[in-house]
């Protein structure tokens, strides 16, 4: 199926600080490719899709590996592995979307190697951008022009820029976040549909909802803002959910491929969102064992 190639020859730089890394990208090798976990990059090199002239191994930048909670904001260093992110004791249980990365994101080896920053910038299975978007999160980027924040779905790195941090606000009391992936096999596959849902309620009245699908238009990931808006101020009840979700999912146009047709994706999208919203409601009304 794949015609695997030898790993191409390249120079390797091994900076140990962000400053050194930016210097390398600015002065020594502007076209250098950044290597963190390598779970996306190495298969791409082996398949001949990319032939870097130079590679910067950033795993020496230990300053970028952390999870912090300060003043209602969570900060996750770009080099934090998926495993460390998902199992961080600083992130409360109600962020199921993050906790469940241990079951939806690749295999244990992949989770031990892949980093949150890598998942945000690289093209593979983009679970972290979906979850981060569902939590109103942002990506912090550092480059020659200094620091800036970008939305995970609009992220475009300029020359010499790197992702240093993911930031998302604590959703506070009465909130919960959910994530799921429908795959063609039991585990460790690529999702046919992935969905992230976050909900915040005051008593049983919806204050804020975020709903993200991996494919809303073609292959583009996006939010269902119409559905989010219509949920606000509603009282929690499964009563109207199906119809409401169906009406909004009707407008998405996910692309089909060898994994599934666009029509099938649309159907699964609806099922997953209903499931997600029902889970969130049950959790918030105490019907799910916490």
């Amino acid at each position, binding site marked *: 199926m*794949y015609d*695997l190639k030898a*790993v*191409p*020859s*390249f*120079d*390797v*730089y*091994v*900076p*140990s600080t962000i400053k*050194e890394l930016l210097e*390398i990208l600015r002065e*020594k090798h502007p076209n250098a490719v950044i*290597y963190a*976990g*390598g*779970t996306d990059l*190495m*298969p791409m090199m*082996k*398949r001949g899709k990319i032939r870097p002239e130079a*590679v910067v*191994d950033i*795993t*020496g930048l230990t300053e970028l590996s952390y999870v912090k909670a300060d003043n209602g904001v969570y900060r996750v260093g770009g080099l934090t592995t998926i*495993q460390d992110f998902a199992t961080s004791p600083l992130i409360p249980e109600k962020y199921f979307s993050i906790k469940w990365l241990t*079951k939806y994101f*690749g*295999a*244990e*080896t*992949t989770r*031990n*190697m892949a980093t949150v920053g890598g998942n945000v910038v690289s093209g593979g299975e983009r679970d972290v951008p979906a979850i981060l978007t569902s939590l109103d999160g942002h990506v912090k980027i550092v480059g020659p022009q200094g620091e800036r924040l970008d939305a995970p779905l609009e992220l475009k790195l300029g020359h010499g820029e790197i992702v240093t941090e993911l930031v998302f606000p604590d959703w506070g009391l009465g909130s919960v976040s959910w994530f799921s992936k429908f795959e063609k096999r*039991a*585990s*460790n596959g690529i999702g046919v549909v992935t969905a992230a849902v976050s909900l915040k309620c005051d008593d049983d009245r919806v204050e804020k909802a975020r709903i993200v699908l991996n494919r809303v238009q073609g292959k583009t990931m996006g939010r269902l803002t119409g559905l989010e808006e219509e949920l606000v101020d509603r009282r929690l009840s499964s009563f109207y959910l199906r119809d409401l979700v169906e009406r909004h999912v009707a407008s998405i146009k996910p692309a089909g491929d060898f994994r599934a047709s666009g029509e099938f994706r649309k159907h699964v999208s609806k099922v997953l969102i209903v499931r997600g919203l029902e889970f969130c409601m049950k959790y918030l009304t105490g019907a799910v064992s916490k």
Partner: protein
Amino acid sequence: MHEILDGGGVEVKMKFVLNGRAVSAELKGNERLMDLLWKLGIRSVKEGCSTGDCGTCNVLVDGRLVNSCMMLAVQARNKSVVTVEGISQNEELHPIQEALIEYTASQCGYCIPGIVVTAKYILEKYPQADENMVRQILIANICRCGGYTRIVEAIKSVIESSRR
């Protein structure tokens, strides 16, 4: 400070710990950890899919289970790498290996070194693992002979006896 490794041919030295012993190695920039281990005479680490799907090249780096086909050798600098050669020392088999023999879990044997390392990781990291958990971690260790049932039973038996 950063060093520059030239993939074109110049070899650069790197230090790390291999199976408990300090090693200093010469390598090229584009070498994978797997390539370096082979150069150093480690034969348990097998190349299967080369893209992180099959688990045949699994090793422990600072106690973490990783695919040595996707890790650059330089990324192991100053770290501690464990392969099957370090799990069974002085020609004495580790209980995991004993169990795999006892349960006749090894058929062609190609996947077994990766499975032994993965099982070691499960024992250390998840000593309370139940069958479900064992299967979940083993999901990325492909056995083309299809000997999964006995592999899982062997590992379960080691976990149970280590609890006693």
